[in-house]
């Protein structure tokens, strides 16, 4: 028993699940291990759900599951309490699964704080979203390669991130599947790839009014460098890449406020 690898004692497990009913009231709450879900009181029309990994970060072998179900006609703003940090780990990858659903005509804004990937970290994450007819979904993911301000340069990495949105019938309507490995980092200045960026943000807005929002969204982004937006077939996407996560967030906030009717998660320190 004493011969067991030390890291096995450190592996974290966590599951947190929240369900909100048609009136926005809590209808289900499950928490296990190092995953927590909090529902801070808000005075706005949208309930907020905040997920938290209490183990303080992710290392190889960790398993986390977060899930949020919003009933037909209801709405919610969900976020994570802090930035998620993936730390160097010699043995394997951490696995994080996020499962979100919004019923018919429901609103779900998923605005987690950034994911920070440190050198020699491994993370395999899946975010799967199911949307009912006429639902409104906003999802934002920000990935930060190390902390350049702390002088860290990420050289070795094993990161896979799947973000898939399906309709109620299971038909895929949006998919973003990115992989960042050591090979990509070795060519980090290649123009078609990272182009020198260490912060990558991707936003998707899927809603009946997505096409109508593109003009105002472009105006809100202004001429911020490294940002662009597009809209088609009920989808609106924004991409941003740069070197400073604070600059990127500041560039995106006006567009996010526009799409959420001026809501931002309270845990965002803005």
């Amino acid at each position, binding site marked *: 028993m004493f011969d067991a690898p030390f890291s096995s004692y450190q592996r974290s497990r966590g599951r947190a699940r929240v369900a909100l009913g048609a009136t926005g009231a809590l209808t289900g709450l499950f928490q296990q291990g190092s995953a927590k879900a909090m529902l801070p009181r808000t005075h706005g029309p949208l309930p907020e759900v905040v997920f938290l990994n209490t183990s303080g970060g992710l290392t190889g072998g960790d398993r986390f599951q977060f899930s949020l179900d919003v009933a037909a006609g209801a709405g919610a703003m969900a976020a994570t309490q802090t930035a998620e940090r993936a730390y160097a780990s010699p043995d394997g990858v951490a696995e994080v699964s996020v499962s979100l659903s919004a019923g018919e005509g429901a609103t779900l804004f998923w605005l987690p704080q950034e994911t920070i990937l440190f050198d020699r970290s491994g993370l395999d994450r899946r975010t799967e979203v199911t949307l009912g007819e006429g639902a409104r979904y906003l999802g934002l993911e920000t990935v930060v390669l190390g902390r350049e301000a702390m002088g860290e340069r990420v050289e070795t990495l094993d990161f896979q991130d799947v973000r898939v949105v399906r309709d109620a019938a299971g038909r895929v*309507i949006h998919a973003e*599947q990115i992989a960042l490995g050591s090979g990509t980092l070795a060519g980090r200045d290649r123009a078609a790839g990272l182009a020198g960026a260490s912060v990558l943000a991707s936003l998707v807005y899927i809603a009946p009014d997505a096409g109508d929002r593109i003009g105002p969204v472009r105006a809100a982004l202004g001429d911020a460098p490294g940002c662009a937006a597009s809209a088609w077939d009920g989808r609106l996407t924004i991409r941003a*890449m740069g070197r400073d996560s604070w600059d990127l967030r500041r560039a995106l906030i006006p567009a996010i406020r526009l799409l959420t009717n001026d809501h931002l998660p309270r845990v965002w320190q803005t």
Partner: protein
Amino acid sequence: MTTHMITIMGITTTITPMTDAGLLTLTHWLSPVFPVGGYAYSAGLETAIADALVADEEALADWLDHSLAAGAGLTDAVLLTSAMEADADAATLNDWARALSPSAERWQETWEQGQAFTRALADMGSDPGVPVALPVAVGRAARDLGLRPEQVAALYLQAMVANLATGAVRHIPLGQTAGQRIIAGLAPRILDTAAHAVTLTPETCFTASFGAELAAMRHETQETRIFRT
């Protein structure tokens, strides 16, 4: 010819005597004379050139190499080889093609060319099925040509980079020879990408094409445009 190919490429009994005829058909479909109109699309390269991100032969070759290995080239090759499987459902793969498109113009170029490809086959008297995105349409049509999926994917990718390189050398501008050097030089990457694609499905196809995808999005608001995408 057929015997020679078996010796060199280790092809086994899956190859039918149709191979040579199939190869002729496929190269016809993928040639610039087939009315798909690929020359009208730049996949964001026009913006990369306007922004001086791609200004010389080396940068153009690198941009195309990256698109093959970790961008639209890989995604297309996976959709194509998936569409060649006997039980493939073209409508589901078309959903994936749309879902994986990161921006309006990326979907526009693959959808418009897929429609044109399907229409051309129908005009020639075959029954190509409902219009779908270009790689799905080509893969579906190539199912009966007696060719291996990685062969079809490699020829498709070569046609793709040849089209992009030809447009780009005129636009930068670079000499014609530079374009030919780039196309020939990308052969190993084309073969690697095609071999990689047959091991993947749309669900397991990962990319890292951030700069190219941002350029394709920025193209939508570019003031002076010659290409549609």
